[in-house]
């Protein structure tokens, strides 16, 4: 597997005016992988991307590309291209000249440039837009041109800095699928930066969750969703209920005043833990057969499901269910052992209860 590593970040740290932006980042990216750096704003994900692009230099650590140290190489000599947040198209050039910018610098023959520009415009579904001024295009179209302008140089890695952030929801979802399809078709490594957990889950092969300049967890979307390593990740990726609990012994955890059987082990006996349960994994059952009983405090219709806040065992449980129960009614709650996820409690102060969507 080692020879597949295209980019490695080794012990990267970065400070701005005494503030630590990146704290000893270690990360590798394999060939043809779609890697997403995910985290709230200010977590260091964009800085990481800019260090790989060559726009920032790390205070310490190395950036390895194809096993060569490229830390001191300027951006114009790196085999990566970037799609910037607000596109950064050149307004004084038309669509065709924007896309051809990199190729002209490589002194490529004119007919070959024309052929490649045609191919790229085709790829991003903007056939025949050659002579249009970039300022006359919509946000979505400008974004496609920015992607074409980067991809036409056939980079080994494409860096994307929140490229869909300025688009509306529907367009964003379309572009997510298009980008993913493009990446698979061209076989180019993508490094994608976003704060949108849904976007990360949809597109990535690997998600890197970052917070406060550190990497919290690296894994496939499924493993990060199903087995978050701590309360922050659980909270940031999807919605979850996080309860403080005590591991009574292997496969038995105590929280909300009740013992729940679970599948986790190896935490020791009578040890404090965080318990994560996804809202869709909580079953509403009869009052008398539930593991814990509660009162429905509020009901919200969310389209696919109802979101109910239920007061049970002196905690508020967020429950997603396709069947609605009226507010104020008493219900029983049950969770199958497999859906109870146990984590070590976070050492640091708990991040505030912020939710991305």
């Amino acid at each position, binding site marked *: 597997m080692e020879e597949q590593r295209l980019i490695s970040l080794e012990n990267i740290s970065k400070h701005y005016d005494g503030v630590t932006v990146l704290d000893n980042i270690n990360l590798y990216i394999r060939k043809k992988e779609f890697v997403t750096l995910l985290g709230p704003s200010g977590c260091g994900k964009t800085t990481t991307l800019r260090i790989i692009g060559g726009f920032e230099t790390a205070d310490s650590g190395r950036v390895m590309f194809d096993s060569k140290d490229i830390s001191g190489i300027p*951006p114009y000599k790196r085999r990566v291209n*970037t799609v910037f947040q607000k596109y950064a198209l050149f307004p004084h050039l038309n669509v065709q000249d924007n896309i051809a910018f990199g190729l002209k*610098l490589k002194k490529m023959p004119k007919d070959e440039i024309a052929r490649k520009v045609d191919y790229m415009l085709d790829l991003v579904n903007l056939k025949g837009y050659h002579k249009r001024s970039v300022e006359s295009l919509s946000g979505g179209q400008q974004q496609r041109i920015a992607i074409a302008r980067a991809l036409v140089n056939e980079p080994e890695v494409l860096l994307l800095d929140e490229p869909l952030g300025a688009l509306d929801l529907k367009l964003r979802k379309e572009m997510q699928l298009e980008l993913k399809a493009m990446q698979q078709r061209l076989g180019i490594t993508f490094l994608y930066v976003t704060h949108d957990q849904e976007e990360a889950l949809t597109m990535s092969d690997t998600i890197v969750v970052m917070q406060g300049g550190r990497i919290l967890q690296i894994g496939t979307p499924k493993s990060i969703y199903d087995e978050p390593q701590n309360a922050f990740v659980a909270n940031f990726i999807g919605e979850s209920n996080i309860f403080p609990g005590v591991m009574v012994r292997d496969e038995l955890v105590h929280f909300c005043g009740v013992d729940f059987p679970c599948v986790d082990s190896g935490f020791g006996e009578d040890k404090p833990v965080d318990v994560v349960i996804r809202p869709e994994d909580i079953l509403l059952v009869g009052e008398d057969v539930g593991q814990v009983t509660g009162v429905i405090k509020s009901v919200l219709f969310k389209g696919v499901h109802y979101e109910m806040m239920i007061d049970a065992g002196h905690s508020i449980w967020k429950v997603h269910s396709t069947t609605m129960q009226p507010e104020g009614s008493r219900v029983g709650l049950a969770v199958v052992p497999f859906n109870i996820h146990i984590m070590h409690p976070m050492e640091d102060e708990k991040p505030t209860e912020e939710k991305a969507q």
Partner: protein
Amino acid sequence: MKLLKRVYLGLILFFLYIPIIVLIVQSFNAGKSRAKWEGFSFHWYEELIHDPNIMNALVITLSIAVLAALFSTILGTFAAIGIHAMKRRPQNLMLTLNNIPMTMPDIVTGISLMLLFIFTQVERGFVTMLLAHITFDVPYVILSVMPKLKQMNKHSYEAALDLGATPMYALFHVILPEVMPGVITGAMLAFTLSLDDFTISYFTTNPLVQNLSTLIYSQARKGIKPTMNALSALMFVALLVLLLVVNRRTKEEDA
């Protein structure tokens, strides 16, 4: 009320422009007397063209204005790009330092430049006047290029590097074309200011190298010839046109 407003505005404009109107009317007066209208004529304009002193001063004025605009635009544009790339605090400091010469009275600038030239034992003449004009033009160029740089997408330069451009190539093929409207406005402004300057020119040249305004001044001391009316009228029209163009450009850029 509406009538009152109009009369008020009319009066202000009247008093503001009456001297210039008198000047322009007088320049077409056939006679030499300033008190009596002796019929319409282009006589003084003809004499103007045939006066070697005036033609000489015109050539000097235009050469100074063109050269000063050229050099100050080059200096000012690159200075603006440099200032723009600075961090916030040194940037604000530089912009303040840039603004001070503009608010300084011309007479102070003129005398201090004169003292500098005397102190450094540089003989005053064409070159010193040109240097002085470049000096007072540069801040205005910086001021008209700066907003264009601020409007530019902050990643444009990085995008160029990312696509393989060297910093030099990016400067000339991405940054300069994007700020070009501001550069042209700056150049026109510099040209206009240089054309119309009297005070600073007066202190930084010698009596043999005269531009139009210092020439008019020295001739006025001997009594104003009617050709001066014609010359002043022409300068007024030329500056008016230039200013209208500059104003229009600034408005379009803001839109």
